[in-house]
């Protein structure tokens, strides 16, 4: 696409990097947090950190919707398979560790687990096999939850139910901004979740916490300009909410998608892997759609799971407190081929991105 070329101009990137160096504070450290796996991919893949002054750090927050699904919900999906329900899920979810095993392990032992590209595939499968029970494992942030809502609103076949695991990103950002030891100076807000929710949910970070917040797109120049805009606000001591990604994100977001989500889901407190319980951060089906609720229909419920396995530091990686390379298991016991923590599983997990981009032999025992 021509868009890619226009938004990846290396000459312009060098210019922006110079502007960033000129405007960045000379002594104190700056810590900017993004909360999107695709941002981390852009930053790592294009070496954006190497263009920044040493005192400007960009850290990855809980931006991978697969990594933060708690083990208890993976366990519930596995329970469903044991009740002869076919579980459909996105590919990234397959290898996420539950308390003891993953959906892939269950599949290897004979469970019917099918990877789908979209919730529509699950609906189609349920229609094609009306005598088989299906469940769609609905994982994802606000970018993904409208598609689940659209299909439920369209009254899918009765042999399809939903294990709703959708999470909301602003409550997690609130948790980060309130972590005193994280000491953040600014947010790069996630571009695609923002196409749905718009800018309003981020106002609190500016008004209540004085946090410069910029919604940015996913091309390398988008991210660089996002960083520049944050530094410029810091330089002027004027924290604001700005939108760098105007070609896709409107102030009000996608109102139609918001309406569909509110029609189908209630917001409840939710557990996040590595982060614990976050108030008002999870979608659940409204009572009138309870017939589609996998918990209710098949009697599955796991209250507590084992989120973090021995030695794993995913809970620190997921909030940007440590880099993947600071985890003792990174590329030693925990590799993309044999992940121990959830951050190494998903293509948007910080450890997985670092492992892939670092170009290190994942099986090397160094």
């Amino acid at each position, binding site marked *: 696409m021509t868009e890619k070329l226009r938004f990846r101009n290396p000459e312009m990137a060098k210019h922006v990097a110079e502007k960033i160096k000129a405007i960045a504070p000379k002594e104190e450290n700056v810590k900017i947090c993004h909360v999107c796996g695709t941002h981390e*991919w852009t930053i790592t893949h294009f070496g954006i950190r190497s263009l920044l002054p040493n005192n400007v750090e960009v850290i990855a927050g809980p931006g991978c919707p697969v990594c933060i699904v708690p083990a208890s919900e993976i366990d519930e999906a596995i329970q469903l398979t044991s009740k002869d329900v076919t579980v459909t899920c996105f590919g990234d979810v397959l290898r996420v560790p539950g308390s003891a095993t993953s959906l892939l392990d269950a599949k290897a032992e004979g469970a019917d687990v099918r990877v789908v590209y979209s919730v529509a595939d699950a609906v189609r499968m349920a229609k094609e096999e009306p005598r088989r029970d299906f469940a769609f494992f609905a994982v994802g942030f606000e970018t993904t939850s409208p598609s689940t809502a*659209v299909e439920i609103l369209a009254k899918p076949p009765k042999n399809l139910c939903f294990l709703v695991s959708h999470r909301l990103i602003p409550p997690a950002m609130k948790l980060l901004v309130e972590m005193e030891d994280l000491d953040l100076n600014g947010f790069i807000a996630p571009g695609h979740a923002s196409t749905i929710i718009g800018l309003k949910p981020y106002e609190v970070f500016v008004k209540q916490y004085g946090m410069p917040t910029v919604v940015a797109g996913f091309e390398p120049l988008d991210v660089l300009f996002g960083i520049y805009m944050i530094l410029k606000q810091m330089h002027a001591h004027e924290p604001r909410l700005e939108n760098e990604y105007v070609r896709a994100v409107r102030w009000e977001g996608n109102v139609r998608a918001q309406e569909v989500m509110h029609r189908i889901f209630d917001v409840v407190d939710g557990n996040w892997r590595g982060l614990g319980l976050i108030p008002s951060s999870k979608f659940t089906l409204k009572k009138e759609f309870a017939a589609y609720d996998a918990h209710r229909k098949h009697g599955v419920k796991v209250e507590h799971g084992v989120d973090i396995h021995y030695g794993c530091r995913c809970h620190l990686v997921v909030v940007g407190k440590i880099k993947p390379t600071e985890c003792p298991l990174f590329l030693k016991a925990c590799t993309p081929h044999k992940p121990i923590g959830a951050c190494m599983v998903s293509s948007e997990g910080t450890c997985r991105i670092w492992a892939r981009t670092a170009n290190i032999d994942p099986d090397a025992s160094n």
Partner: protein
Amino acid sequence: MLMNMCLAIPAKIMSVKADTAQVDFGEGVLREVNVALVKVNVGDYVLVHAGYAIQVLDEKEALETLRLWNDILNVQTDAR
């Protein structure tokens, strides 16, 4: 196709029938996506996530972004 959980890919709307559209991701192959969440016309560019168009891209704003970037860079260069 690669499924990134928060990635959305731009595509051009080639035809629309109710909530379903044929789109081109720039590879010349038509694919079907659900457009229930957006209001689209043939020729629009949309962001597609997991088989669903989630927003219409604004070409005018895209050009405006590029102009703004150039402005920022030029103004700053002059100021130095």
